[in-house]
């Protein structure tokens, strides 16, 4: 039996605080689909994904109905195409992209991730073909997501790959100019990419994973914000240690909801349950924002001095709460600060509170990195590569995941508005100082060596 307070708090979390399961992502291993023949490979991939995923959406919906918690996104992650499609050329990679896009439509999911390459130490022929194929593949499809891991703490930063990927981003942006460079919103560049992340655009299934696995991404920035506000209203004298405790407890509850639903989906589909990714992932909806949490904590806006400390506290409390709630926590697990996907963060950028430099500083203490950042279309490949290299260095040195999802918007300048639609949201294009410089640093190529603390054995 549950008492009144338990019933009210649960209903409030679901109804008014936007508690949902942000993503149930089915990871599917494609290594047994490999063939040197493209037709055979595509047929194998299609058969395997349909065999595993045809019931995914229905099962997620029925489990969501049972608990009154919406599973907002149902998605699929696959083995890196650069590995399983290694024999193929860039043109053939584009064909594979179309096949994957069609399969995603067939199983009724919005995004399929894993058009990916792992090139932190070097670029193999399959990786090269995939990176070359990225602009066309992303511009010509709607549901395919791509990721490229260019750095790890153990291997350093592959600067050749950083420059190659910057060129690919610029070209993808131009090819999708009619949609304000939307293709780039489906491409993440990573340092220390997690193998089990359920969130797009970076989700792929790592090579050490099972044949099929269910990973769950929970969310709940609205729930955390309300919990902080309620507590401060009742006890205005609360200090930050006590507020961190409230965030931790709330994250624990949110994680348990995700695990409950993920495990049930996995059980019904007879697929192994993987991890809960307990990231606070916002949407462009009022009340479902990471940025609003900063205001609840007493800051004018995300981006003002104090923001990095607040984010560090938030991120840590979320991890601690989640780690207590579930023994299988993985993926990114922290707070996301995607500019266009969070209404409040987009406003902070538009109003001058949040600059790209502050954003970069904040990524030192949270998960992901420069996420959904629209920049002027005339940014040079070298500057873009410099931004990516900086972000990768933060990940490499701090032994954490960082990523960039930067969108050069063709024909638009800093300060202009851009809208990507749906969950991708809208934002004001951020100013990048010296954006058109063509510094040679990044063109020197090679590999920035791994840091000394990578020598752990």
């Amino acid at each position, binding site marked *: *039996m*549950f008492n*009144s307070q*338990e*019933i*009210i*708090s*649960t*209903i409030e*979390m*679901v*109804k008014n605080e936007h508690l949902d399961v942000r993503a149930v992502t089915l990871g599917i291993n494609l290594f047994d689909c490999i063939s040197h023949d493209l037709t055979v490979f595509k047929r194998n991939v299609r058969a395997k994904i349909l065999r595993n995923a045809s019931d995914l959406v229905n099962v997620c919906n029925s489990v969501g109905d*049972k*608990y*009154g*918690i919406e599973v907002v996104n149902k998605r699929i992650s696959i083995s890196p195409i650069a590995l399983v499609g290694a024999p193929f050329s860039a043109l053939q990679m584009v064909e594979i992209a179309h096949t994957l896009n069609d399969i995603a439509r067939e199983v009724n999911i919005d995004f399929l991730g894993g058009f990916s390459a792992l090139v932190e130490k070097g670029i193999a022929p399959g990786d090269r073909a995939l990176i070359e194929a990225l602009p066309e593949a992303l511009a010509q499809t709607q549901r395919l997501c791509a990721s490229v891991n260019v750095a790890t703490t153990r291997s350093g930063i592959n600067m050749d790959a950083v420059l190659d990927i910057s060129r690919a981003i610029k070209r993808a942006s131009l090819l999708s100019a009619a949609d304000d460079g939307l293709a780039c919103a489906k491409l993440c560049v990573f340092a220390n990419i997690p193998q089990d992340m359920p969130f797009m655009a970076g989700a792929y299934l790592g090579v050490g994973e099972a044949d099929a696995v269910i990973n769950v991404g929970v969310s709940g920035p609205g729930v955390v914000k309300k919990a902080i506000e309620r507590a401060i209203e009742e006890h205005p004298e609360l200090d930050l240690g006590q507020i961190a405790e409230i965030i931790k407890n709330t994250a*624990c*509850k949110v994680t*348990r*909801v995700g*695990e*409950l639903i993920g495990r049930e989906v996995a059980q019904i589909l007879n697929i192994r349950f993987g991890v809960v990714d307990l990231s606070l992932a916002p949407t462009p909806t009022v009340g479902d924002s990471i940025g609003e949490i900063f205001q609840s904590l007493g800051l004018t806006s995300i981006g003002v001095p104090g923001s990095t400390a607040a984010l560090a506290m938030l991120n840590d409390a979320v991890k601690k709460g989640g780690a207590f*709630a579930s023994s299988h926590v993985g993926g990114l697990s922290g707070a996301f600060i995607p500019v266009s996907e969070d209404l409040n963060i987009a406003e902070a950028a538009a109003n001058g509170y949040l600059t790209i430099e502050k954003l970069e500083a904040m990524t030192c203490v949270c998960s992901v990195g420069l996420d959904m950042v629209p920049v002027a279309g005339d940014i040079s490949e070298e500057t873009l590569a410099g931004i990516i290299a900086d972000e990768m260095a933060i990940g490499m040195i701090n032994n954490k995941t960082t990523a960039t999802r930067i969108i050069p918007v063709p024909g638009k300048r800093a300060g202009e508005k851009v809208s990507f639609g749906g969950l991708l949201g809208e934002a004001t294009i951020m100013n990048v100082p010296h954006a058109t410089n063509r510094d040679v640093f990044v063109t020197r190529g090679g590999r920035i060596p791994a840091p000394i603390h990578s020598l752990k054995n």
Partner: protein
Amino acid sequence: MNKIIITVLGKDRPGIIASVSKSLYQMDCNLQNVNQMILQNQFAGFFIVDHPDSLTIEAISQQLEKDLAGKNLKVHADVVENRGNGKQKIDEETFLITTIGPDQKGLVARFTEIIASYGVNVSNLTAIFKGGDEPTANIMSYQIAITSDTDQTGLFKSLRQKASELGLDITIQHKNIFKAINKI
């Protein structure tokens, strides 16, 4: 030993449980299970007791009324049937139906009528008032047990339809979600 259930109702005040349990103890009755609740200022207590073969249910009832005389309490005693052990059936799934909206007459009657028409048992019913003068803050929560024989889709559809007719917000959730969030 034989099992009976004793119900005690009246205005809440200190010492009710003490008086009842003392009286039962003096009759050599063994308390097996006790539960009480207070609705506003009204006390309701339920006592399941084993009593010696030498005592009839009428004798216990009369003795209790005598011991509690002057306290303005109503006592009722009944035999507990042994059918069923009160435990949940294996294939039962518990759901909580919560309606939120303006208070109106016949609310519980309308929903429980639907639930009963599908042969489903209400195991707990709670009215929650969040406080304040907010007219929409009336919350009713029905805990029901669904079995594999229940037409779950039909029941939930009927309940949602009724809530919509009455202008109420309805949520139907498996109990495990409340457990996951609250019972850590």
